[in-house]
């Protein structure tokens, strides 16, 4: 339980910038997910916090204390790797009591502490098993218990679930969340899985190209993405390019689409309007397109169970424009591929982002 502050952290390898002067502030007992595409620098940032990598510039403070110059062993952090990190020559119990043991605690204390943690992760009855006798999910639970056994100030997890199959992954992520709430340990979890990040984080830190693009709660990340990358990377979004004009956006075919009042600040600039599929409503084309709506062709309809997801092509707009619409599956019969439709939405639904901002990041 401690705050974590990374300040002005940068790192390059052979002149290639991997992290570019990055700031991250974490509150006590907070769970933050570092989310971004592969190679964007998530592991590097996590390992700088853990002390395995020395940053070129910047500092790391934990609970107000500068730990930048401390070796990993002195940082009081617990780390969980993607897989295969358990010591193969030790049982689950011996793995978990390793931290207390090297700290010089009495053996009865070590065993008691390890027993409690194996209980916490639900593996009390597997304490005498060796790693190769446990499943991937069980091994990750033991790794989690082992990291927590030293009562770390900070828990660091680098894609701890990505080597597991889907069902176990889901179970274990709920469990990580529960255990994190119980132990109140400040936690950084690295993932490239946006659903995982949105479902368990207090806040999500979206990274790309060595920069933090947005750090916010899952719902803000989803509803008000800070830039075009975040909007495209998180969830599914339809994109309508245009030019801001007062509190609206003019499309290249002349259509004026209302947007929220904040857009007025960007008047005259190139913008992109982002629309989530759940906000887009469709009607079969009946000859005329009402104001605030767009003509579209159904390109593809995917049955997802209760919902059907429809992909739309916008013949009057540039190629990279496109929309998605979700609808209850019982209405989907009206919108087979090839069907001409009009698409419309509530005027508060679109999220407008200036194109310059998108290119700068």
């Amino acid at each position, binding site marked *: 339980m401690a705050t974590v502050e990374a300040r002005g952290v940068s790192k390059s390898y052979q002149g290639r910038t991997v992290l570019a002067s990055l700031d991250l502030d974490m509150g006590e007992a907070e769970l933050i997910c570092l989310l971004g595409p592969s190679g964007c620098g998530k592991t590097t940032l996590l390992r700088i916090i853990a002390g395995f990598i020395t940053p070129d510039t910047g500092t790391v403070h934990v609970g107000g204390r500068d730990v930048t110059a401390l070796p990993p062993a002195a940082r009081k952090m617990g780390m969980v*790797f993607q897989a295969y990190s358990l010591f193969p020559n030790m049982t689950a119990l011996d793995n978990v009591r390793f931290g207390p043991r*090297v700290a010089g605690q009495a053996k009865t204390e070590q065993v008691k502490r390890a027993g409690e943690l194996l209980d916490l992760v639900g593996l009390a009855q597997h304490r005498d098993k060796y790693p*190769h006798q446990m499943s991937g999910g069980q091994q990750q639970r033991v790794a989690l218990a082992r990291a927590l056994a030293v009562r770390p100030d900070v828990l660091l997890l680098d894609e701890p679930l990505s080597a597991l199959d889907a069902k176990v992954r889901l179970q274990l992520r709920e469990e990580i969340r529960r255990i994190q709430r119980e132990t109140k340990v400040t936690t950084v979890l690295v993932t490239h899985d946006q659903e995982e990040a949105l479902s368990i984080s207090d806040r999500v830190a979206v990274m790309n190209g060595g920069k933090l693009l947005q750090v916010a709660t899952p719902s803000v990340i989803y509803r008000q993405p800070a830039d075009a990358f975040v909007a495209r990377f998180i969830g599914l979004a339809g994109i309508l390019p245009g030019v801001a004009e007062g509190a609206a956006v003019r499309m290249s075919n002349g259509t004026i689409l209302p947007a929220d009042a904040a857009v007025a600040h960007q008047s005259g600039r190139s913008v992109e309007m982002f629309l989530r599929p759940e906000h887009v409503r469709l009607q079969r084309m009946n000859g005329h397109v009402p104001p605030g709506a767009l003509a579209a062709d159904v390109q593809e309809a995917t049955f997802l169970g209760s919902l059907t997801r429809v992909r739309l092509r916008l013949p009057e707009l540039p190629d990279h424009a496109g929309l998605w619409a979700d609808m209850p599956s019982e209405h989907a019969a009206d919108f087979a591929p090839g069907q001409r439709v009009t698409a419309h939405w509530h005027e508060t639904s679109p999220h407008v982002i200036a194109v310059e901002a998108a290119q700068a990041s």
Partner: protein
Amino acid sequence: MSQAATTPLRRDGVVHKRPASQGVAGLILPYSVIGLFIALAALFMAAPTVMLAVQSVTDDHGFTLKYLEALGGDNIVVAFRNSIVLSIASAAIGVVAGGLIAYFVISPAMPITLRSAVTSFSAVAANFAGVPLAFAFVSTLGTLGMLTQGLRSLGVDIYGLGFSLFSMTGLTIVYAYFQIPLMVIIITPALLALRTEWRESSENLGATSGQYWRMIGLPVLLPSLISAFILLFGSAFSAYATAYALTSGNIALLTTEIANVLSGDVSSSPQTGAALAVGMIVVMVGVLVISAAFSRRASRWHK
């Protein structure tokens, strides 16, 4: 058939691909190849062993223990002791030095080209034995060797200090020349199998580097170190040409003794040779049994 149609096996969260089912017909080839190997091994190892054993207890008049009793003779006991000491010493030097060299060579700080250079060199050096090896050492560390004379010109007379290439110490050094690279070759894969995650986890949990090696690194390596030691012991124990070329039989070893009694001008005695060979086999089996016991203990966490 039905197996091949099922989806990959899922065992508690880890996806395992099941190899394609081959059916009984598909197993005929592998079993016959393995069977042939076992048959050949039996023919050229087990059969001679039995013959040697029989020969060592038989003379013109039938059963006798005199050849085995002769193994208690002074010079034979010396040969046993020399062979065992030389094998243990050169294997120990090989394991320690070769292990350290391999460890440093595979460290991430070293260029990858160095690793392949050392591996290739080791493959050659590990097979450099016999007369050429003896000659190489005589011309460097012999009484008139380059290194000996070089040191002498610097005021260090190694022969004056008691060193001799033609002694047990000298033999141990020469044997180390092929033992060390042999160790480098056989231990490198085991060292590469030590995962960085283990090291980093232990560091992260507060362990020192010494604690890592004592509690994780060495215990995990121990079975490999034991098998490496046996291999090195065996390679020294059975070496003959190097020792003979270097010492012309002045230092009694089991292998040179066998050669003596088989080709001896004075008394050619195949039965004594057989008895010596049986003695060697007993030593080798003893070493294997002891180390197998250690190895089982060392790897009880494994499988």
